[in-house]
């Protein structure tokens, strides 16, 4: 799904992890925001042979966190992403639902699940119950997202049960007193699926984070 980059101004390239889940929906929304996307299914899509990171940011989509985590291990990509997201490289990353679980430092009950683990929160997987308990709601933060509430679609969604480092993790929106959108420096995560609505505000915020963290070159050794 790579789209062409106009020669006059080099576009940002956002990598979207395409191992499983609704990565296509993220790509459409990012393209709507005017950035290029690059599907990441293998290590070589993320790194060139010299260890240079080929994208300016990375999205981990909704899907099944166990499936995506296992594939990250089997395809030898987990360490690379973990290193790229950590300082000094600080590759910006957005995780939605399963993506949020894969970013979380701790997972209740399933703490041995393979993941990136860079976001200082604890999550509980599938915390609202089976699919019949999945729902839509509206969340608001006028200062961050404007007057119009965000439409949040929660599907077998996790709950952020604890913020482990409140100095670093900023809660951008909450639902029933638990955080639903959080940001920690260059890491943005939400427990719902902005990619399932036409609303680009979460993705636009992520693109702003990418712009603030643009690096001439990120090279892993």
């Amino acid at each position, binding site marked *: 799904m790579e789209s062409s980059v106009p020669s006059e101004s080099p576009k940002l390239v956002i990598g979207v992890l*395409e191992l499983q889940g609704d990565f296509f929906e993220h790509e459409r929304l990012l393209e709507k925001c005017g950035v290029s996307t690059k599907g990441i299914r293998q290590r070589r899509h993320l790194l060139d042979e010299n260890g240079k990171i080929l994208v300016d940011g990375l999205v981990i989509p909704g899907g099944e966190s166990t*499936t995506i985590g296992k594939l990250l291990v089997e395809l030898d990509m987990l360490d690379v992403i973990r290193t790229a997201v950590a300082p000094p490289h600080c590759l910006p990353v957005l995780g939605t639902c399963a993506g949020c679980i894969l970013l979380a430092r701790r997972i209740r009950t399933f703490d041995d699940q393979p993941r990136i683990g860079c976001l200082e929160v604890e999550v509980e997987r599938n915390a609202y119950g089976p699919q019949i308990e999945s729902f*839509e709601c509206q969340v608001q933060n006028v200062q961050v997202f404007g007057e119009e509430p965000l439409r949040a679609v929660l*599907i077998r969604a996790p709950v952020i049960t604890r913020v482990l480092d409140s100095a670093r993790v900023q809660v951008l929106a909450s639902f029933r007193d638990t955080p639903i959108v959080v940001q920690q420096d260059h890491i943005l995560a939400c427990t719902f699926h902005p990619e399932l609505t036409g609303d680009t505000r979460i993705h636009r915020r992520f693109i702003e984070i990418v712009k603030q963290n643009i690096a001439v070159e990120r090279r892993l050794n």
Partner: protein
Amino acid sequence: MNSHVDGASFAETERAVNGGSEWSHLNGDVHASTFAVKVGLAQMLKGGVIMDVVTPEQARIAENAGACAVMALERIPADIRAQGQVARMSDPGLIKRIKAAVSIPVMAKARIGHFVEAQILEALGVDYIDESEVLTPADDLHHINKHKFRVPFVCGCRNLGEALRRIQEGAAFIRTKGEAGTGNVVEAVRHARQVVGEIRRLQTMDDDELFTYAKEIGASYALVKRTKEMGRLPVVQFAAGGVATPADAALMMQLGMDGVFVGSGIFKSADPEKRARAIVKAVANYNDPKILAEVSEDLGDAMVGIEMDKLVQKWAADSRHKAQ
């Protein structure tokens, strides 16, 4: 085939199905069971493999191998075929034990038209119901009115008309019928090519021709129009019925399916865990023959396949169910 789709497209199909959101339930501060929530779970399963399991132990093997969901069954299709008895919904006790064994979504099958089996499965808290031709149909003329349920449904199809009729009845997810329990992928390929081919032809039609076309294929005009606009089925579509190898799974993906159900193919093979893992990896990299070659190596025997002309009963082309 996804050229006109964005994230909201599947949910917007609701307007073509029932003209609004009259079926969604407002419950306190949340809207439960909206069409977006029902089709949304299918969207989360895309690019994944859903595996048939008959014990909690098999469910754990499937989860460990990277399945994105499991289908809890009493007997896998190959054994249903071998035994030739009436096949019904599984024992609720078994479904509960499988649910307790894994953290991924659990699906279960109800007989076509058997809305009470569906009510029971919903009460058990399964994540998706498969109204399935693999079980013996309970109603030879009608399918379940799936709008009445909070739990979402997946249904089989062999062609575009059948797929759109199921969506009209409330299915939030479609799969090919294929021929389950055969280990022979030919029917799944036929049904996938049929649907994708019909959509391709639909896209070349003049808008004036859609009214007659809708009548010909027995589907609603609104859904035919919606399908033309999207250039694909207006809900997620998986392959099912006869997938036995990583190559079979990748074939279905390259034919434009969004993911794969594997039934008998895994636990009727020599090394289920290895095969399950290989199929998951094959679906994630279905366009890379090098990876497909790697994962196909040393898998042991696949399930024994059955030639179509040796089949006693074809479930997909089933005379047991008159209203397809």
